[in-house]
């Protein structure tokens, strides 16, 4: 399909809309009409985490962060992960809806399940084909392990 790319994680079809960019830490980035860059988890990250039930931010909106600064934590039935800033800039706001009910990240990760908005320079992100190529390059290794680790 024109509007999206697909990457097969085993039997799981991870879909990546081409209308946005992707960061190496498996978040998507899309510039909103007001100029803020909105971030959310890519289908790849959401699939690895599976059902997210806990989301927490370690800073308030308005904080200035460097790329890779730890900004929060996420937990699912299968996994824990700290979350890191995908780029340098200011965290403009967090998605209250995802805070209130993190399951929205799995249900509508590219839409209402977005995580936060930042202002800053997002030019370090990749377009969808580059991101999928990045996944392809690392998948062979991931596959055997994920089969054992995740059901």
């Amino acid at each position, binding site marked *: 399909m024109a509007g999206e790319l697909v990457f097969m994680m085993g039997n799981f079809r991870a879909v990546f809309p081409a209308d946005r960019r992707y960061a190496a830490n498996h978040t998507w980035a899309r510039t909103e009409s007001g100029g803020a860059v909105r971030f959310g988890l890519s289908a790849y990250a959401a699939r690895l985490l599976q059902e997210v039930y806990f989301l927490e931010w370690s800073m308030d909106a308005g904080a200035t962060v460097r790329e890779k600064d730890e900004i929060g934590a996420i937990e699912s039935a299968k996994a824990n992960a700290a979350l890191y800033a995908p780029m340098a800039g200011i965290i403009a706001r967090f998605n209250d809806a995802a805070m209130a009910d993190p399951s929205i990240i799995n249900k509508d990760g590219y839409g209402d399940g977005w995580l936060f908005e930042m202002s800053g320079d997002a030019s370090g992100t990749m377009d969808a084909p580059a991101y999928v190529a990045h996944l392809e390059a*690392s998948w062979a290794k991931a596959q055997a392990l994920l089969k*054992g680790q995740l059901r």
Partner: protein
Amino acid sequence: MKKLTVVISESPGKDPRKRELEANILAALVGQPDVAVSVVPHLYDLNEDHAGALFLRSVNGPLLVLAWLYPRGIHWTLDRLGVKGRVGQTQLKRASDEDDKNDGGKDDKPRLGAANAPARTIWSLDFQDGDTAEAHVQEIIRVAAQVKAAVKLSAAEAVPVAISSPPIQNLKSKIGNPPARRWYPVIDYSRCANCMECVDFCLFGVYGVDDAGRILVESADNCRKGCPACSRVCPENAIVFPMHRTPALAGAPGTKPGDLKLDLSQLFGAPSALDLADKERDAELVKDGREAVGPPKRQPCCDLRPKDALDKLMDALDGERL
């Protein structure tokens, strides 16, 4: 009739709630016919010739040790003190723990196993696995009953006649004075594959090799207080720092290879466990007035393709599973 020897290892601090739990358990056990109870200072702080360690080594029948450590930390700290035996199954669990039946690796890789472990059993109970004295006392009585039944069954054989019965202790006083606090790694030989990664990694000479070629913690007190770096490089998760605040490093149940909740932090851009280990070690080197050595040749410099976060994650998982 053979009794179960119960040794209470006191908490290292002065937390009155901990002291109270210890005292209540002790009081309840004193009247029990099938147990002989003694008290030693915090097990982890004992060195080999502390009176408490001598006492523990003098017990060669069934032994149950209650301490403020995870059971795996207790078992391998005892092993290190020369108090050896098979792992006894206990039924107390922290509410958050699920299933920790399997205490070894899942694969076929040969593990070192404890050296010269006799056939007797050692049960390790963590004080933190029960809020009330009753829960612990019940479990101890259950184990004591099991010991009694086993002794009856095999009355004629198995039990050597000349078992030294532990010296009778004055219950008001514990064996030996509280020693200074210590910090060192303890090896879980049921997991260790003798790969020597830890010897190569630690630059403080903590690890050594015995005459049989087995890895051992040779100079425990050379270890840098608070440093857990080598436990992160051990591919088998065999290095336990029983007093570390991170449960996975302190030997918490359910933290055997492949049994952890996946930590996907690397996926989202975190420094990997190996990077963290290098940083921790470097910090200790600098504190010691030496030079940081940075990351080793682990990732060869000729590997030009930059490793991405996911690759690192998979490396970490790879290391844990194999």
